[in-house]
């Protein structure tokens, strides 16, 4: 009859811990990565003060160095330089507007007119929240220092021209 070999060499009571350690480190890595990623990022936005009595918040802008960007629907924008109506607005998609901003800034800086290059962002009722964040992000990337948000004074002429292009 076969007998269990109880005598002789005793097997060491050692357990192979390698897979356990592997699993532990995998979990540690997972927790390290998820904790740092889950903290949400934020964008700092300053809107103009609405108090009309406060004289300090009136900023003078140079028309020739001001670029107005109107945000319309379907991720489209309309932009023009200077005062409304002086030049015909250009229509393009939001993803392409960065090139125009660079070009306009170059022209404005070369003109020799004093003052900073200003971008005026006007989100219209057709635009969505993402468009607004995208354009502000674009301005941050392009390091446009002076940027203004104006969603109250959208001129009728601007609305008309945007409607004619079907982006409002």
């Amino acid at each position, binding site marked *: 009859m076969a007998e269990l070999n109880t005598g002789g060499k005793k097997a060491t009571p*050692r357990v*192979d*811990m*390698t897979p*356990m*350690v592997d699993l*532990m*480190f995998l*979990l*540690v890595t997972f*927790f*390290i990565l*998820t*904790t740092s*990623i*889950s*903290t*949400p*990022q*934020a*964008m*700092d*936005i*300053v*809107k*103009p*003060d*609405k*108090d009309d009595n406060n004289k300090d918040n009136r900023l003078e802008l140079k028309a020739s160095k001001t670029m107005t960007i109107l*945000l319309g629907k379907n991720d489209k924008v309309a932009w023009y330089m200077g005062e409304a109506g002086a030049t015909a607005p250009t229509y393009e998609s939001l993803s392409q507007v960065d090139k125009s901003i660079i070009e306009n800034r170059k022209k404005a800086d070369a003109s020799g007119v004093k003052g900073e290059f200003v971008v005026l962002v006007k*989100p*219209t*009722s*057709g*635009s*969505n*929240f*993402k*468009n*607004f*964040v*995208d354009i*502000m*992000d674009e301005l*941050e*990337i392009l390091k446009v220092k002076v940027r203004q948000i104006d*969603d109250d004074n959208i001129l009728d002429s601007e609305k008309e021209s945007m409607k004619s292009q079907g982006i409002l």
Partner: protein
Amino acid sequence: MPRIKVKRTSTVTDMTAMCDVAALLLTFFILTATARQPEPLAVSTPSSTYEFKVPAENNATLTIGQGKVFFEVAGQKVRARTLELIGQQYKINFTPEEIKKFSVVSTFGVPVSSLKSFLAMSGADRMKPGVQTGIPTDSTDNQLNSWVLQARTATAEVNQQPMRVSIKGDSKEEYPVVKKIVDVLQKQKVNKFLLVTNAEARKK
């Protein structure tokens, strides 16, 4: 001549110590990680390259999605104080138990009138669709205005710090809805906001 004996050492290393360290680290990370709160209003935030962390304290978050607005203020003590102030303003008496319950509620969106019944619900019932209808922002009954104002007062009282306002908007949310909320804040002369976004790699 005797041959040089090369001592064969076993390749098995004792992993116990390594395992201990890993377990210790794991425990530490699990305990320090803040559990993700269930959100009553799921929004997908737009992405940006901004690298500014949303402050964990002295901050109120307005979640905007599907035309509704939800409110959250950071800090349990601040929350408790905010509810007390809201109770005083709307002449509602909240019991200490209700205040305690409210201090652990993160994001919520119910009118003040149904706040009592909302607090009486279980956590799972609160998340059911249709329960939280958003905070009223009409010009006649602007409760969002009160919440932000009282949260600011409470933060100033408890932490002696000014409160920041973060806006967590859904990508698809139409701009006029966002503007309506922002206008409420601007009436209180809150002109600085944080827009909560997802991190995005910077384009080259």
